[in-house]
């Protein structure tokens, strides 16, 4: 176990730096998870949008419309400063800007008085609001067509009974966001930069010319050297995995360890950690300096996370992006995690999909390790 001990010695001598790396990526992934969580919760309760209204009409009908929308949303009437509103929309501080024109309600054909609606580009919430506004205004038009005055119509709208909605009980499915889901989704961004940076730091020592030469003439075979290196990595990986579980348990206020699907979550995160170790091993043998590791790992980890559903949920990504992402292990982690997030208990057909996702990640891991071992062998022969 000489090689394994050698790795552990380097770990011990760099322990402060390793702890620092753990802390950096814990902090960033927790903050990112919290940031995406608040945005997502807002998106998943679309019946409560933040709407900024510029009411240029200020007539009874516009007030009735705002009162109607106020039953479902958080509506604020703003000054007519459109650039400021654009900025708030751009930073997601509001969901929709509604402009009510001066002619609103005065033109019976509704050619001039149409309500202008602006959403964050790429969002779909406007569709929902459009339905509501059209529904209410069509009702006004119908009453007017039947000979009622606008004042009578507004009076009738006041006393309207709301429609009934129920939630299906005894369901295995779950449509709401669980407390630990955002942090679990962020796991690849926690593991990949942290493990790659730390292992890159350690492997940089073994990339030194004198070290390579000494190791190549040692009696320990290349196979044994690689196996012992992987075992040393596994120790670090398991440490990070346990740390991540502790962080998730803390963030979810103690609910994670009581989750009914805990064994599946543990399996999925553990396999993701193994995949990350294989990636770190691969990157580690490619670079010669510790500073280069970060230059490679930063775009690699951020890019993977963006196209594989870590920062942006898979459901929002385009079909073409998902087709490409299928060839990356992080996609299968995210997909499996999303499936687990959708259910309280797993039906048999979904269990199969979960194990398939975990299995595909293992295949990726084996392939990456295979390629890395082949590269190390080729490099040794080159020397």
């Amino acid at each position: 176990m000489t090689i394994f001990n050698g790795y552990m010695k380097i770990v011990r001598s760099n322990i402060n730096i390793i702890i620092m790396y753990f802390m950096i990526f814990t902090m960033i992934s927790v903050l990112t998870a919290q940031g995406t969580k608040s945005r997502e919760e807002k998106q998943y309760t679309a019946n409560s949008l933040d709407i900024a209204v510029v009411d240029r009409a200020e007539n009874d009908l516009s007030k009735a419309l705002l009162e109607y929308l106020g039953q479902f949303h958080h509506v604020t009437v703003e000054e007519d400063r459109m650039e400021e509103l654009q900025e708030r929309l751009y930073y997601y501080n509001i969901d929709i800007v509604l402009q009510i024109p001066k002619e609103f309600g005065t033109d019976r054909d509704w050619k001039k008085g149409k309500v202008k609606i602006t959403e964050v580009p790429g969002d779909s919430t406007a569709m929902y609001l459009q339905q509501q506004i059209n529904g209410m205004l069509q009702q006004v038009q119908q009453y007017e067509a039947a000979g009622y005055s606008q004042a009578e119509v507004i009076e009738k709208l006041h006393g309207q009974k709301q429609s009934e909605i129920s939630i299906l009980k005894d369901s295995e499915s779950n449509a709401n966001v669980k407390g630990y889901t955002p942090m679990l989704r962020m796991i690849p961004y926690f593991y990949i930069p942290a493990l790659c940076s730390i292992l890159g730091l350690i492997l940089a020592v073994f990339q030194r010319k004198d070290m390579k030469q000494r190791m190549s003439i040692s009696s320990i075979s290349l196979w044994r050297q690689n196996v012992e290196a992987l075992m040393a990595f596994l120790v670090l990986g398991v440490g990070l995995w346990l740390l991540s579980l502790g962080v998730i348990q803390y963030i979810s206020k103690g609910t994670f360890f009581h989750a009914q699907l805990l064994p599946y979550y543990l399996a999925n995160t553990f396999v993701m950690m193994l995949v990350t170790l294989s990636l770190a091993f691969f990157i580690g043998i490619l670079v010669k300096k510790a500073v280069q590791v970060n230059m490679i790992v930063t775009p690699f980890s951020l890019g993977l996370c963006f196209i594989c559903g870590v920062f942006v949920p898979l459901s929002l990504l385009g079909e073409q992006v998902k087709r490409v992402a299928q060839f990356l292990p992080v996609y299968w982690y995210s997909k499996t995690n999303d499936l687990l997030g959708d259910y309280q208990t797993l039906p048999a057909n979904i269990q199969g999909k979960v194990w398939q996702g975990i299995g595909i990640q293992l295949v990726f891991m084996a392939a990456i390790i295979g390629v890395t071992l082949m590269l190390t062998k080729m490099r040794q022969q080159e020397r």
Partner: protein
Amino acid sequence: MLQLFRYRILSLLREKTTIFWSIAFALILATFFNFAFSGLGEDLKSISVAVVFDETVNQTESESVVKSLKQIESKHKKLLRVKSESEEDAKRDLKNKKVKGIYYVTPIATGENPIRLCVLGSGLEESILQSVMESYNNQMRVYTTVMLEKPQKMSELMKFDYGKSMVVESTITGKEVQSYTQYFLALIGMACMFGCFIGMGTASQLQANVGALGARRCITSTSKAKLIFVDVFVAFFVQFISVLVLMAYIKGVLKIDLGNHIGYLVLIAALGSMIGVSLGMLVGSIGKVKEGAKIGILLTISLTSSFLSGLMVSSIKGTIEQNCPIINRINPSSLISDALYCVGVYEDMGRLQVDLLLMLLLVVLLYLGSFVMMRRVRYDNI
């Protein structure tokens, strides 16, 4: 002096891998971003919904309900995929997520709302189903009211055009601003900040107690001030070029709108690069600290700064602006992305000047700090 520049540039260029990655990492990331966001904002697909009719609803009435639900459109696409089925099948489909909701339909004449909705939980699609139901129930309410109060007007009501929309989608200032532009602006901020690694390398090679090269350079007859000036300038120049390449790639190839004020864009790239390099020099000049630790410190600062400017979660900068705006005034990445935002999106030159002034102040402070750390250092033992 020219020779010093020449050799410094040559020695930096010989670090091929470092130079390659310092330019390539941001280009790769920008390509990833562009690809990831290419499908974002595709219209919502039609929502599947099951309809369960009460036994008392007759066939004509049920056919009419299904027909009117199927006719609803949004953005010229059918909004709903409707299938009529038994309650048991509908519940099974809802549990298996084959449908997003169940509409239970009762006869209109009962006086109650004719449609009620059953869903699994809250969500955008569930909310749309809710608003469709509200619209339908409200229309039916109008029919029953008019029937009771003004039956002679029913014929006019029947002619009503339901396809007409009273809402129009528009942009605010006439300029289409994609929400994901923020990610690219934050990325340019991050690329500037990553100049800190070149700055750190430069500082290390100016200190005798860090490496052999530093030791050799410290005993040359060339004055240290000259060496520092040349090293800092070359580091800045390399970083500046890599940021300009990134900007040109984002604007020219990825077609992200960064505005047309090229002069301002170059100025922002210059100040941003100076911030990155000077930060690296400050941390690099700490002295005999392990390289790994210095990298860790720089990585913490640059990644946290990038995170706070919205690189991972685009809404974070706006939230900070509302709750603790001082962070956005001192965070280099936020200042860079905000300055770019002023040029490309907001076209607010007053705010841009404030950003540029704050960036300049940061540059002066960071360079002053690193010069103070490096000047007049004497070594008894290295």
